């Protein structure tokens, strides 16, 4: 029996790897996920065969309720709510890991060897802070909590001190595993730290936070497996941990910031004085004029941002792209790595609207193209097209790679109102000679553009 169970685990580990390998291309991704699903099934069956399990009653309750909740969430959550959903599931994953850790600790009454204790401690520490941190992130993304950074005086010092105490608890537990009080104190502190870690982070930095939480949730899972000493399944947790880690690094690179800066910089609370010096006038453009410009262009590049997601404008945008293509215009979409609220956010929304992925271009691919672009249309994006990042070393976003919309012959910016973006920075692009502003709800503006172009 043991051989059978272990070989199930081994196969499932291999299937997980094959599954993620499939993710290297959209064509093979779905097949890859079938491997991963099968791998998960094998792991569950293998576990249920273990002789330690003597009763199935509660397992069935958990499995059935969890499946119903998961299915409901999986089928009905709209694509626009994907960042919240993902944050929420990070919370669930991390909670599951910490609960297992607590249960293990409680069962042994703290009578654990140092290694197992450190695995459980790590699991519970990371799991707890990820649970509350993810819930806060979810609240921010859903709009229940203010998206602006919440800051107070001495915040970083306080957070650091809290983290230090929490880690001290962990170290103490490593030395004295049976110090039960210390264990529960550590959990409490980690839960508080999770909240404090995420509240000072602005919405625009969410892609990094999401990736980090993803990484933590994965590492907590990996630690679970250490704690129950199941070697092969370490693979699964580690894959997740590293995936989140790599994504965090990519997101940070895309903003030219370090992870510490994102976590402790309280970005988005930028004071006015850094940006107030902007002068000039923003030029408005009418729907009809914009339609003419688009219809007679050779190449049009759309630059979507989070504003497209909030306005749900992706379907209208696809329509506009279709009518333009019918007229022989080359249409491309330029996707900045941190556009939106999570990695790949824009790609999913555009895919939902049936935009073929061959039309989506990454930053490095599209930037040389802007020179030969007649019209670049910015749909609810701001910081990712802010030329200050490139030209002004004193700007808070200096060095962040941008989509060089200002190199296009004309840039049309769709914007809700005259205010600033989420980061609170002024954007000189809006004041340029070659830029025209089209105010209003992005979805309405684009629908009107579609009508106007069709009439031409």
């Amino acid at each position: 029996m043991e051989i059978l169970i272990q070989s199930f685990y081994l196969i499932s580990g291999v299937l997980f790897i094959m599954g993620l390998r499939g993710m290297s291309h959209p064509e093979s991704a779905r097949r890859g996920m079938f491997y991963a699903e099968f791998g998960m099934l094998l792991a569950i069956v293998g576990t249920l065969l273990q002789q330690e399990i003597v009763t199935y009653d509660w397992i069935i309750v958990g499995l059935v309720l969890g499946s119903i909740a998961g299915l409901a969430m999986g089928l009905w959550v709209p694509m626009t709510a994907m960042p919240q959903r993902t944050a929420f599931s990070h919370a669930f994953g991390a909670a599951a890991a910490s609960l297992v850790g607590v249960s293990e600790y409680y069962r042994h009454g703290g009578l654990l060897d140092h290694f197992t204790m450190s695995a459980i401690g790590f699991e519970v520490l990371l799991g707890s802070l990820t649970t509350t941190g993810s819930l806060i992130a979810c609240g921010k993304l859903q709009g229940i909590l203010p998206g602006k950074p919440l800051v107070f005086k001495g915040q970083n010092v306080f957070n650091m001190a809290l983290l230090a105490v929490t880690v001290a608890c962990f170290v103490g537990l490593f030395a004295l595993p049976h110090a039960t009080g210390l264990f529960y104190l550590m959990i409490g502190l980690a839960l508080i730290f999770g909240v404090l870690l995420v509240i000072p982070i602005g919405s625009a930095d969410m892609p990094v936070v999401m990736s980090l939480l993803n990484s933590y949730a994965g590492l907590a899972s990996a630690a679970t497996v250490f704690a129950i000493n199941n070697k092969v399944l370490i693979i699964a947790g580690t894959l997740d941990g590293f995936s989140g880690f790599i994504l965090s690094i990519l997101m940070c690179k895309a903003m030219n910031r370090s992870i510490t800066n994102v976590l402790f910089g309280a970005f988005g609370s930028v004071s006015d004085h850094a940006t107030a010096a902007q002068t000039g006038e923003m030029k408005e453009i009418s729907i009809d004029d914009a339609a003419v410009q688009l219809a007679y262009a050779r190449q049009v590049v759309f630059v979507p941002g989070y504003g497209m997601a909030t306005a749900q404008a992706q379907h209208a945008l696809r329509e506009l792209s279709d009518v333009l293509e019918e007229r022989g215009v080359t249409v491309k979409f330029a996707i900045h790595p941190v556009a939106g609220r999570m990695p790949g956010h824009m790609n999913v929304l555009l895919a939902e609207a049936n935009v073929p992925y061959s039309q989506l271009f990454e930053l490095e691919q599209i930037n040389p193209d802007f020179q030969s672009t007649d019209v670049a249309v910015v749909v609810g994006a701001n910081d990712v097209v802010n030329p200050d990042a490139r030209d002004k070393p004193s700007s808070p976003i200096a060095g962040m790679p941008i989509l060089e919309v200002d190199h296009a012959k004309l840039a049309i910016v769709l914007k809700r109102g005259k205010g600033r973006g989420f980061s609170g920075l002024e954007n000189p692009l809006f004041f340029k000679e070659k830029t025209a502003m089209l105010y209003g709800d992005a979805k309405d503006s684009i629908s009107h553009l579609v009508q106007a172009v069709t009439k031409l």
Partner: protein
Amino acid sequence: MTIEAIIPTLYVFVLAAFLGYQVISRVPPLLHTPLMSATNAISAISLVGSLVAAGAKYNIVSTILGTVAVFCATTNVVGGFVITDRMLRMFKRRPSPAPKNSHE
């Protein structure tokens, strides 16, 4: 746990980390959101620990904690895979030719 038992575990961890780095680096930014929800589903492998805690009749507290953990992890497994598939289904090279575009 003895040192002899720890070493192979660490081996697996370190090798998995390298493998993870290699595999994940090849995922294009296009698929980063599905990647996140997929790894989320896979990381619900802590379900394995939850199942044992819920089913082993160690004591009432462990059973309750285990059951809640089984619920959380199962939600992630099922929800994560369903939603990943829903997303991946949307990624198309070219949209299925709509009638009005047939001149292409």
